[in-house]
């Protein structure tokens, strides 16, 4: 029922790597490609401190967050024990070498999760 949208070809994602899919609202979605060309999609936000998972090292069916090396399962978005927490996952399918995401999910899922912040504290610089 839901509209699938093509985001890229499998070959556009580096093997054992990821690409970011920008959204109109909310944080980007990271699409990952494993060594066996399996493709997964997660919100590009580590459940720990919001690190961009798309920038992590992909190994097996996991990605290591670039900020503090939490290992996040690509299939379920959940941190490997003993760390705890999950990042929202997005439906994803591959057909004829094209990667499809669900448009409804892209438009509606996890819009409320904030981006991590850095830089000078506004209150103090004022």
């Amino acid at each position: 029922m839901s509209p699938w949208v093509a985001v890229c070809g499998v070959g556009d994602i580096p093997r054992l790597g990821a690409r970011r899919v920008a959204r109109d609202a909310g944080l980007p979605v990271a699409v990952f490609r494993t060594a066996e060309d399996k493709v997964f999609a997660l919100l590009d936000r580590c459940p720990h401190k919001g690190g961009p998972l798309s920038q992590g090292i992909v190994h097996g069916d996991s990605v290591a967050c670039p900020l503090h090396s939490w290992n996040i399962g690509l299939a379920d978005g959940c941190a490997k024990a003993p760390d705890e927490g999950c990042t929202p996952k997005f439906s994803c399918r591959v057909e004829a070498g094209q990667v499809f995401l669900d448009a409804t999910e892209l438009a509606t899922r996890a819009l409320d999760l904030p981006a991590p912040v850095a830089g000078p504290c506004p209150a103090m610089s004022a």
Partner: protein
Amino acid sequence: MKPFEGHPMKKMKLVMVGNGMAGVRTLEELLKIAPDLYDITVFGAEPHPNYNRILLSPVLAGEQTLDEIVLNPLAWYEEHGITLHTGKTVTQIDRARRVVRAADGTEAAYDRLLLATGSLPFILPVPGRDLQGVLAYRDIADTQAMIDAATKYKHAVVIGGGLLGLEAANGLMRRGMQVTVVHIMPWLMERQLDDVAGQLLQKSLEERGLKFLIGAQTQALIPGKDGRVMAVQFKDGQEIPADLVVMAAGIRPHTALAEACGLHCQRGIVVNDTMQTITDPRIYSVGECAAHRGIAYGLVAPLFEQGKVCATHLGQFGIGRYTGSLTSTKLKVTGIDLFSAGNFTGGEGFEEIIMSDPYGGVYKKLVIQGDKLVGAVMYGDTVDGSWYFKLLRDGRKVADIRDKLMFGESNIGDVGHEGHSRAALMQDSDEVCGCNGVTKGSICKAIKDKGLFTLDEVRKHTKASGSCGSCTGLVEQLLMFTAGGDYSAAPKLKAMCGCTDHGHQAVREAIRAQHLLSIDEVFRTLQWRTPNGCASCRPAVNYYLLSSWPKEAVDDPQSRFINERSHANIQKDGSYSVIPRMWGGETNSSELRRIADAVDKYKIPTVKVTGGQRIDLLGIKKEDLPAVWKDIGMPSGHAYAKALRTVKTCVGSEWCRFGTQDSTQMGKDLERALWRMYAPHKVKLAVSGCPRNCAEAGIKDVGIIGVDSGWELYVAGNGGIKTEVAQFLVKVRTPAEVLEYSGAFLQLYREEGWYLERTVHYVSRVGLDVVKQRVLGDADGRRALWERLQFSLDGEPDPWFEFDKAQVDLRQFTPLGAPLPVKETA
């Protein structure tokens, strides 16, 4: 014998005899790697689930309760579908039918059998040993009987002044009994202590109220009218009153069951390196009952190592060998600090360093042989026990630190935990790990609540010591205090990560010896457990390939940390920082103007001057990186990489009225010769133009100080977690020599250092003597090293400009755009 996978009826049957720490740990390891392989049945002679036997002493002393020392509650067995028979002693193994039978007739069939029967206390063969009131000290029942006796009776005699005997004596005394320890040897704990430390220990225990009969030989135990023991009689006819006698004269591997079914036993059930009995391949054995290469271990750390190896074989992974352990000892009597490891007796052919302060109750002895630490005894101050044990295990040469050795690691300034070095003195609210904000209280709680035993487990659960590692010593101390026993005994060779059993050195050597050229080849040849490694081993292997086979091995960007893939430094919000290279810390108006323009154009929020004499632009969006590089038009500063960072300089003789050498030019020459140099970790240099050393060369990986007659080279300094002053390497005359010697040292580090090992750690691992021999003693070798470095760096691209050559994947800088719907699914 392979099971039909996924068919529950065909699961293999694993029976374990003995429900103690070593056995259950083996099951835990097995369940981790092969949770569904076996139907597991466990027989335990005691009516309890698995508990921490080491902590019986604190229970006896009234410091902990029995509930607190249970490691695996009954619910754990249920949760994992394990059939548990408590209070049932297995009396027979029928190897032909593959069935074990307990005293009450309970039977269980097995495909694999694990014998973890532990040990039995040695009972002196003296008359009266069967009397009421005569106990061993081994299990919960013994402990409970001692606690009960302490409420009713007055006089206790402990036979045996070893670890166990003293802990029992201390516990009984704490419970109000008058305790005499009878010890046949000339001093206490003679297997763990030398005579001086043994006597210090005796004195201290006497001050607490224990009595000792040293050298006394027990002849008989005399019964009273009620049939209970009343006195202990010695060879010389002397008698002392005793309402309770505790036999703690040693333990023997419990092998009766194994012997009865024909398994070869000699000082234990004889097993090979996979913990399989040499008689019957279906039967494994771990723990105090197993004899590995002639040794039956009694300490928990080696037993856990055995368990891990055994589990991988039971789990049909077929990897890992147990090759024996070095052990250390710590007495669990509150208030008495005592530690020993290795060969502490010394004697002919050994050198000893001794510090003795009998008045202050401190005694330390280090035994050295052939420039290596081979043993240590410490009494009164054991803070550095784990450090000495590490030196001992690693077999590190100690010539360069010999003068400091006695004073321990703790006087070398670690930062991040308020200067604490003694965990016992810290408050629960004190921070142990300054990186992750973990307090002593939360570490102790995790150790107790989650039953943690090893440093790695504490790291995983609490994060303590998991980041910079400077508080590792403190965390190890907390483990000793909280969990008891010795938990620092990691395997002699530490594996690179969970993906392999190989250590860094073995991987390096294999890559060189077998001319391995790709990560896949390494993983295949060395039988990696995971298909494509993890975030810890892949970057390391990638580096080893590139440093071993420059121009041959091909870089794999996907195996590099994001900073080295995007050539900028990721920040906490996912933005990046850019630090352009400023040769020797010098810049000019046009560079500054371009930087200023880029700051405005790309709205860069923070501009900061770094400690390495450069300018850091923080908060750049990833999409803007290539444009910022182009606009600034300066070379990459590699401030994001495990590579040469900066060469810090002072202004030197060009301007400075004290300057003796042109340090700025020397710095620029070094930086131009060495930039783009990847290394096991970041590398920082500094050049000062006179001994006032304004460039702070004393805390750099390579620090150079100009003096009137030439240049002094210092290596392996560090300004980070462990502030370490660089060590003098050599004095040379010309700038060309500075380049050659510095380059040779760095190439040596690049070829032999382990990934993420700074030069300070590398040099302390191999010893400065080795470095001197390679760089100074062997002129041809030095030139060859310097040539190999130049060969490696020749033609290396600048990743900010030569994208193709540096394999920079430009796709990463463009997010996939807002997608359009293309089709509907039915």
